[in-house]
């Protein structure tokens, strides 16, 4: 079952769409916001709330890269690896992640603090290389700047 907070968030969106199933992505985002990721149980809860089958919901959940079907760390860091960031050296930032935290794309630190994922162009190309942490975009990245950012995130 959806929690009261999840249900309330879903109900607030409901009037904006003519069909219940149109809320599938929104519902998955709401559940992920509250639970951190989308477990099989979360899928079933969303399916029940929208009158869909869990398989239908899973077909949506597995399509979108910002919906996590596996547990992630407390901080998910999305490093842009698209072309402008590549020209400006995002591979060096990747190396720095490997050296400092021991993780590559798709991996989480053993302490559950950080997950590193690639992301398509963040629209910050005039400040490449760039990454997104939570709701914030950090541009003109250098290994030193990345160190300061990682220190700030608990």
């Amino acid at each position, binding site marked *: 079952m959806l929690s009261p907070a999840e249900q309330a968030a879903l109900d607030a969106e409901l009037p904006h769409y003519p069909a219940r199933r149109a809320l599938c992505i929104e519902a998955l985002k709401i559940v992920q916001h509250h639970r951190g990721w989308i477990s099989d149980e979360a899928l079933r809860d969303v399916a029940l709330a929208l009158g869909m089958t869990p398989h239908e919901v899973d077909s949506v959940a597995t399509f979108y890269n910002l919906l996590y079907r596996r547990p992630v760390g407390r901080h998910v860091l999305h490093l842009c690896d698209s072309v*402008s960031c590549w020209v400006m050296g995002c591979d060096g930032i990747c190396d720095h992640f490997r050296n400092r935290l021991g993780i590559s794309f798709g991996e989480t630190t053993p302490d559950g603090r950080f997950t590193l994922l690639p992301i398509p*162009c963040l629209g910050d*190309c005039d400040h490449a290389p760039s990454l997104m942490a939570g709701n914030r975009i950090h541009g003109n990245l250098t290994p030193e700047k990345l160190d300061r950012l990682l220190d700030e995130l608990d």
Partner: protein
Amino acid sequence: MARPLTEHIRHDRTPLDLPAYERTGGYQALRKALAEHAPADVTEIVKSSRLQGRGGAGFFTGMKWSFVPMGPDAPRPKYFICNADEMEPGTFKDRYLMEGNPHQLLEGMILGAYAIEAETGYLFLRAEYHRCAEILAQALADARRAGYLGINILGSGFDHDIHLHTSAGRYICGEETALLNALEGRRAIPRAKPPFPPVVGLFGKPTIVNNVETLCNIPHIIRNGADWFRSLAPGEEAGTKLYGASGRVNLPGLWELPLGTPLREIIEGHAGGMQKGHRFRGVIPGGASTDFLVEEHLELPLDFKSVAQAGSRLGTGTMIVLDDRTCPVGMVLNLERFFARESCGWCTPCRDGLPWVEKILQAIENGHGREDDLDLLRHHARMLGPGRTFCAFAPGAVEPLQSALKYFEDDFRRHLQGRGCPYRHSPAAATA
């Protein structure tokens, strides 16, 4: 030089709030349209302005609107959608417009909705643009309070509201029919065309989907007229364009310039030329899915027609510059890796062909390329070209590949002969 879209955007990009936008003449176009023009007249003005879609395809906006069934017998409701799913690699123009002047976009959307008599609007925003989402939610609330949205807008009898839909990722959502599926809560897989969205779109109803920059032009066209808009550009095409540059240039950024500004003026003038120690080798002019242009094209006016005649596409107008110390093979590998990852998987040529292309390029870059690989890559570029896949994704994906094989064939050969990447400073070589 007129910069209607950006002249009021503040240097620190703090958004113009409603009173500030109104002081610049904001919402005067909407007042004028509702008071003086029938919906079909608005479409007619946009048609005669010759505004072309700024999302990359360059289709005439007024013509698109004119495909929507009108009158009392038209299917209802109709939908007007802003495509704010800006995810074309190297492109950062729509973000600037939304953060700096959100009401300019909303006014364009409301005018478009009025023109096609749409009851409901959606602003489809990519998930990563959190700051845009906050700014737009505030702007929508302010516009509703001021009576620019909702029931009986400005006493005209026209009802319209706009909902902000934030997405959950995936590049393909920018394809307009994939976007419709995403809005319906489904996997973002493109739809077969025809029928086209203006006739059968969201939830099966008539729907217009327009890019952010396209819509930001609408209030200015309605306020100042089609003749004024056409006079903004020196050539046959009309209006201004947000051009951008990134890569090893001195001043990466964005500039609103007359549509048809020459490539050289942007790179050597506005972008401040190449960084010290780097020489210009080429550019993909309008995001990842456009063909390379090279030195011989520096005088080219960057408008839709001229760039197409030179064998590329204007695309989004935000260019990525290739310098002489960056490996062209590595750059194309990066692009094809992106496209292989972002293929929606619906049709076989795209789903299987693009990873194949990526693997060949990776092998060449790593020094395991074979003599016949270049022919194989050319074969793929043809087999993934226009008309052979379900949508325009794969044809776009092979544009930089086919043009790299044409302009940088020597670089590919050096990789094959030297068994690996000759660019010591190439970002790819650094991690190989």
